[in-house]
């Protein structure tokens, strides 16, 4: 419920920003204050990297939405593991106990990357031959598409992606 409210607020802010830009023509709001241009979405960057056409973008959205759904319980496991690691470190648990929490994290991370790899394989299969060379490089971007930062966060799951 809380998350939905947040998303609604985000959506409202995004729409307001888009409407403001339509009538403007420059980067200022009606009060003359500077409004930065929104950056390209992660999905747009991903689609651009693979040079997807409109139909392929639609298909990609479907594939990635399914992957996002599938990854949700795994993300929750990752969050649990992060809390467990931090708890163990703060409470001064033994090296073995800390290692166990990190192994649990690795296991959940492998599941998540597995979901991403599966989604990427589907996407790759839908590419035309001229889009396939170097497509593998887009795999890293896929994690960013599937892992949008939560409110207040700047990074996602914490991969080498910036």
């Amino acid at each position, binding site marked *: *419920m809380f998350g939905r409210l947040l998303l609604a607020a985000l959506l409202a802010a995004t729409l307001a920003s888009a409407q403001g830009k339509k009538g403007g023509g420059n980067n200022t709001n009606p009060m003359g204050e500077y409004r*930065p241009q929104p950056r390209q979405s992660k999905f*747009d960057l991903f689609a651009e990297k693979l040079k997807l056409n409109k139909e392929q973008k639609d298909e990609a*959205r479907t594939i990635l939405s399914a992957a*996002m*759904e599938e990854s949700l319980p795994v993300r929750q496991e990752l*969050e649990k593991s992060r809390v467990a690691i931090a708890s163990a470190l703060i409470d001064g648990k033994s090296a073995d106990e800390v290692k166990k929490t990190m192994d649990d994290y690795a296991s959940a991370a492998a599941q998540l990357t597995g979901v991403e790899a599966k989604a990427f394989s589907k996407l790759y299969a839908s590419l035309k031959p001229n889009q396939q060379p170097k497509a593998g490089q887009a*795999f890293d971007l896929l994690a960013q598409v599937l892992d949008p*930062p939560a409110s207040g966060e700047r990074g996602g799951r*914490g991969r080498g992606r910036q």
Partner: protein
Amino acid sequence: MFSKLLLTGIFVTTVVFAQGRGGGDMGGMGEGGVGRGGSMDLPSVAVGRPSRFDQLTQTLKLNKDQKKEVKSILDEAQKEATPVRDQIAKSRLAIGDAIQGGKSQDEINQLVSSEAALESQMAGLELGAFAKIFKGLDKDQQANTRSVFQMMKGIFNGRNWNTEE
């Protein structure tokens, strides 16, 4: 015990938020639209945000000595994280290449496991830094570390933890 209570609070908030993000209809998003359950198309807007260090300072109301300590902890962790970050990038590239090259599922699984081990190592560095910061805070400050815990996720993904890249 105190940290357990605090971290449980962090977890509950995180999971609630994750559920909000993940549930519901994610398909049918129009060009540039935003779905109810996900923000796949949501453009990120860089509004003149304070640096991470400023956020930490303000959130935790750090005194002069604590500021110095926090900066030192994060600088040190960033140094350790840099090679791990590079390895993760290489590892993810290898997975993409393996899929592109039509490698077997076993081979892909091996690459996925290796990448996950690196992810775990990075999480250890992020949360190790968090634990050190946490221990250097007083009780009132510790009770206010929820957003700091969230901030640690991916904090060393760039070259400098204090700037958004």
